[in-house]
């Protein structure tokens, strides 16, 4: 275990060493911080005072509020975030008569909406990948930024017959395992589920457009009409994406969805795998399969319904109650976003079949061992849980037998 902490302690010591070597910057730096901090604070207060002001910009549109806090900015249609008109009504060809056009030149995006809908920029500034782009509400939604991954204030105040939807953009695909299909027309609302960061059922559509990658969440009130749903689809179908508007995900864009590793089925072993399309995979795990020689706890099965991971990445309840002779194996593709060569020390090429004795551990508080390997040009992390720090030879043999049945899919041609 001491060896396992080596890197951890090295970082701590290194940061401390660098810290000791740093002198405070010039006093002007602090003065700059205070001056800009005051201006930012005043800007927030001033914006809050503007609540209720109505702007007339070609068409009469209500500017109900500006952001009272943080980086969220409510903007009127047909303007840049700074309020400078960039389009006139005559230049806009709305999808529907009376609809308005929101231009976001800095983001390389535009979208049309019904005239009484609100657009707020960067509703979730805490997000860094994906980063928050905008939120649109069919009602007067709070402009206060959220510290989370969803506009929680806006959702909490969602009227029963209204809708809020928001767009996030992925700067890099290294943090996601999900597929991004080219955007369809009309815009599809997909994957209705209860997402952890949303707190209630909503749609999640991941899509690519013009070489950029987005996630779109939409939450409808329980009494939203089909007409409202259609207006959302029409609005999203009007989204225009400028390929030069923001950096794409770069080389790792090719890291498309990969099928999970699997174990050939045999009596006495139960398995659960994430779905091959990965469309509903949540959390930080990669495509994965759980194998167990004891029944899975129902609570764990509930987190892997239909191949979707909606809770933790391991069958934690099963692991917690694992008998001392039980074995749980989690095989996880750890490739996504990982760009090391195939002779990486972290994921060494190992001859088949893999050997359970190559696993290191116990790690992470004990009773688990980790084996990493490059197999079929993919990086695989295999975690063995034994219910004990000292697995018996019978347990090791059982784990080895299951490991012999591991099938790691080859990289798809697109990757």
């Amino acid at each position, binding site marked *: 275990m001491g060896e396992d902490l080596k*890197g951890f302690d090295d970082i701590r010591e290194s940061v401390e060493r660098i810290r000791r070597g740093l002198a405070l910057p010039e006093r002007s730096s602090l003065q700059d911080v205070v001056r800009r901090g005051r201006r930012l604070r005043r800007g927030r207060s001033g914006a809050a005072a503007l609540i209720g002001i109505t702007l007339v910009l070609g068409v009469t549109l209500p500017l109900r509020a500006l952001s009272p806090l943080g980086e969220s900015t409510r903007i009127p249609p047909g303007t840049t975030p700074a309020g400078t008109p960039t389009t006139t009504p005559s230049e806009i060809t709305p999808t529907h008569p009376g609809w308005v056009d929101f231009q976001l030149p800095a983001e390389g995006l535009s979208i049309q909406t019904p005239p009484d809908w609100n657009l707020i920029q960067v509703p979730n500034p805490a997000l860094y990948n994906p980063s928050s782009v905008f939120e649109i509400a069919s009602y007067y939604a709070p402009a206060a930024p959220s510290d989370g991954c969803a506009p929680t204030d806006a959702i909490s105040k969602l009227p029963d017959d209204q809708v809020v939807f928001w767009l996030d953009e992925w700067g890099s695909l290294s943090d996601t395992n999900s597929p991004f299909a080219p955007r369809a027309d009309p815009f599809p609302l997909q994957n209705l589920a209860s997402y952890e960061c949303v707190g209630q059922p909503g749609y999640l559509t991941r899509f690519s457009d013009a070489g950029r990658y987005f996630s779109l969440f939409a939450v409808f009130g329980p009494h939203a009409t089909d007409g409202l749903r259609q207006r959302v689809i029409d609005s999203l179908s009007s989204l225009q994406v400028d390929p030069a508007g923001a950096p794409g995900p770069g080389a790792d864009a090719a890291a498309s969805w990969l099928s999970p590793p699997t174990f050939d089925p045999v009596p006495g072993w139960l398995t659960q795998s994430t779905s091959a399309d990965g469309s509903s995979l949540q959390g930080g795990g990669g495509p994965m399969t759980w194998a167990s020689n004891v029944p899975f706890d129902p609570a764990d099965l509930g987190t892997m319904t239909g191949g979707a991971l909606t809770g933790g990445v391991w069958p934690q309840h099963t692991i917690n109650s694992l008998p001392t002779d039980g074995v749980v194996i989690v095989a996880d593709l750890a490739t996504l976003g990982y760009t090391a060569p195939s002779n990486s020390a972290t994921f060494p090429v190992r001859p088949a079949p893999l050997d359970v004795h190559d696993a290191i551990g116990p790690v992470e508080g004990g009773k688990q061992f980790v084996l990493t390997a490059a197999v079929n040009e993919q990086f695989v992390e295999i975690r063995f849980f034994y219910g004990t720090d000292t697995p018996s030879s019978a347990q090791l043999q059982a784990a080895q037998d299951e490991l012999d049945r591991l099938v790691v899919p080859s990289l798809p041609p697109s990757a």
Partner: protein
Amino acid sequence: MDRDADFERFYAAQWPKLVAALAHAIPAGDDPRDAAQEAFVRAYAKWPHVRDHERPDAWLFLTAFRIATRLRKRSARPPEMFPPLSALHVDDLGVALALRDVPDRQRLVLLLRGVYGLSTRETADAMHCPEGTVKSLFARARVTLAASLAEEDVTDG
């Protein structure tokens, strides 16, 4: 309470630690002082909130990390190494090289837990993700890091 004096103490106490942590948290070549400065601006603007935060230092680090990520996306100017290579201890270089192999989120977990001492639960709260995700990221990061450091040792040796 004098807001500015209070903040100035915070600035003096946290600036070196923040820059040092950022030096390992963001890719080599990005200047951590830019993101640190921006994070302090936001901390000043929200000072009553930040001061009363359970972990103002961790709040500051997370804010700076996110800013650094955005600056990286948008910056067009050539990167400037800070601290300069000549100022780094050889072991710090080893850590920097090892961390280069660790993906962003894993690196963030390592720094939050290792340098700021956040628990799994606190890290999950800060990152707005499940504890299991933090455990997974942490475990992977440590495997990657340990292997990278071992590789460095072999190379050095």
